[in-house]
């Protein structure tokens, strides 16, 4: 089984492209975050950047495995690595995507708690991964758990917006709200594949908002340097 199983045939390829775009945006923001961390040495910024990097990698993995399935390259790779089943290869891709995405979301949620101790981080990580990987329906549990994390993140960003009242913080709150609704749609895509498409579109809106915020901050940096 793979994520692409939930895609309508006409959407094949579009999902690969969209996931790749999401990955580029996330990695760009993560690298920028690491640059800010270098200037500030503030650990929450490091966690944030790490989280975005993990989530970006999860989309790269998803995009690659979906492309393998679309192009039938997965069969050739299975022969090359002497793997008996293509379904098993697709499953590895799915589990790797879920692993990186879960780690990224857990780190983001932990960062939002602003706690000194690392114990809650490890606890959330272990519980989430055990629940997903030892479940009879790992995909469904993955979407459920990630939806819970995303709603907590929406809560955090909403509180941040109410505190700061800046346009940028509002953009990020709305972006994560789109991510939450997108994730919910993916959970339903196992029943009907149109939800897979809707989920991708909602994620596209979310990541375009994140990109818009990132470009605005970069533009202000350039304006300041030229002044």
């Amino acid at each position, binding site marked *: 089984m793979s994520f692409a199983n939930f895609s309508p045939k006409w959407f094949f390829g579009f999902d690969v492209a969209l996931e790749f775009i999401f990955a580029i945006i996330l990695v760009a923001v993560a690298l*920028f*975050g690491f640059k*800010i961390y270098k*200037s*500030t*040495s*503030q650990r*929450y*910024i490091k966690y*944030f950047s790490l989280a975005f990097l993990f989530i970006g990698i999860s989309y790269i993995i998803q995009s690659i495995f979906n492309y393998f399935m679309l192009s039938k390259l997965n069969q050739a790779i299975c022969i090359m690595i002497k793997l008996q089943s293509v379904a098993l290869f697709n499953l590895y891709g799915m589990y790797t995507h879920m692993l990186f995405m879960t780690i990224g979301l857990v780190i983001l949620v932990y*960062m*939002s708690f602003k706690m000194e101790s690392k114990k809650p981080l490890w606890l959330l990580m272990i519980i989430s991964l055990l629940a997903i990987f030892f479940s009879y329906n790992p995909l469904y549990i993955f979407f459920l758990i990630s939806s819970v994390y995303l709603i907590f993140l929406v809560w*955090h*960003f909403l*509180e*941040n917006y109410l*505190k*700061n009242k*800046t346009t*940028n*913080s509002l*953009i*990020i709150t709305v972006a994560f709200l789109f991510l939450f609704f997108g994730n919910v749609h993916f959970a339903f895509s196992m029943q009907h594949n149109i939800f897979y498409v809707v989920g991708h579109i909602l994620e596209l809106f979310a990541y375009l908002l994140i990109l818009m*915020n990132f470009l*605005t*901050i970069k533009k*202000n*940096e350039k304006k*300041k340097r030229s002044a």
Partner: protein
Amino acid sequence: MKRKRDRLEIIHDILHVIRQKGSGIKPTHILYKSNLSHQMLTDYLSELIEKSFIIEEVDKKGKKFYVLTDKGFNYLSEYKLIRDFADSYGLG
């Protein structure tokens, strides 16, 4: 009523005070200008030394004073960018 300063803002205010002095500043002067309690200032100064934003030196009379490093100057020049990024994601 002015809102409570977050960590990034407090660091900015301390570094700004040190930069304003130019040649090095004593802890008591930072205390008056930064609007922090003695304990908080001590904690922040330790953190800023540990993270190489400032260095602690001793004058001929044996009195401590603080000077900005390149990293400290860099923080101040990039503060707007840091602020925008941190405010977007609640990283303050």
